[in-house]
């Protein structure tokens, strides 16, 4: 069994998750990462995606949308602006958001903010993937 470390996920409204975990995986601006105990101290910025928390008893998934992470050797703190458990996600809304975002990106019209649309798309995909 792998060593565990303390993980805390905090949102502006509450402490979303607190516990000892073996591994946590999420997306950052530099790509996907998986963190085990004794990771090098680091601060990373989050990209929308699925966060997978591996507890000794099993796995938990959630859709993580924005924020940043402070990684210390025995403690990881995720400051999340927005994060949802699978049962809080509205699938239909996420699917229609995905379509809308794809249309906007495909249209390539001058007034379309591609960055915003692609973040909206990533967010919708994070929600959908989290439920799979």
């Amino acid at each position, binding site marked *: 069994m792998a060593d565990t470390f303390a993980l805390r996920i905090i949102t*502006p*409204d509450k402490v979303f998750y607190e516990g000892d975990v073996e591994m946590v995986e999420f997306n950052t*601006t530099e790509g996907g990462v998986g963190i085990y105990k004794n990771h090098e101290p*680091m601060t990373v*910025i989050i990209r929308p995606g699925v966060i997978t928390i591996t507890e000794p008893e099993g796995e938990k998934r959630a859709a993580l949308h924005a*924020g940043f992470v402070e990684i210390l050797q025995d403690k990881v703190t995720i*400051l999340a602006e927005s994060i949802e458990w699978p049962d809080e996600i509205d699938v239909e809304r996420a699917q229609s958001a995905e379509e809308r975002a794809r249309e906007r990106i495909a249209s390539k019209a001058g007034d379309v903010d591609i960055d915003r649309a692609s973040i909206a798309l990533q967010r919708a995909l994070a929600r959908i993937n989290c439920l799979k």
Partner: protein
Amino acid sequence: MASMRDIKRRRSSIQGTQQITKAMKLVSTVKLQRARSAAEKSKYYFDSMYRTVNSILSRVGHIEHRYLVPGDSPRKAVVVITSNRGLAGGYNSNVVKLVTRNDALKKEDLDIYCIGNKGRETLARHGYTIREDLPDVIEDPLYSEVNALTARLLESFEKGEIGEIYLAYTFFKNTVSQEPRLIKLLPVVPEESESESNAIMNFEPEDVEAIEMIIPKYISSLIYGGLKEAIASENGARMQAMDNATSNAEEMIDKLSLMYNRARQGSITQELTEIIAGSEAIS
């Protein structure tokens, strides 16, 4: 001496007022409990945010970044958080005073972003420039709305319209004491005290880019935290004000009851004297 009927009318009107203040006190007590637990829950986030940003900045202190130095413009933006409703004692005027009584903040150079009606009314009357008026945010604070406000503030900062950003709100110390505070949001000034362990921290992406992304989140979180504190403070202040009003009303009612009883007694005595005098005259 006031007539019996006048005293009675006055007393019943005060009793009516007392019932209102009593009810308002109860309502704000309940609201306070809710607001307080919300403020406590969100505190973790802001404390962690504050600590992280400070530790990042203290490590990259030498870096030149536009968020770390004042902008060229002499104009300053102040986000003022007050309430939409009155009857909260000195709560609103204390926050407004932070702005009007501050010599460093000149009236002509200020852009006010007002959250809450009461502050806007007073500041507008004093002739301040109200850039934005957001009374709804206080009723149900959403992080996304605060984020949008931060984005607008930063846009204005980048365009060079404003050089500094401040936040005026009321810090919730405890139920009986709230403290109006004015803090500087931008440029970010890292705290000098660096007692914590100097673990080497790496950044992904690089320092400058990280600051670029974290500072807006930092500002949003400070405004959001201020908002939560302010709501708790508002209800605390109102609870206290209404408690005082209720006990003042009680005092007045007691006084008026005494006066009424005296007047009644007086009129009875007078009537008796008249009867006795009348019967003596006949016999």
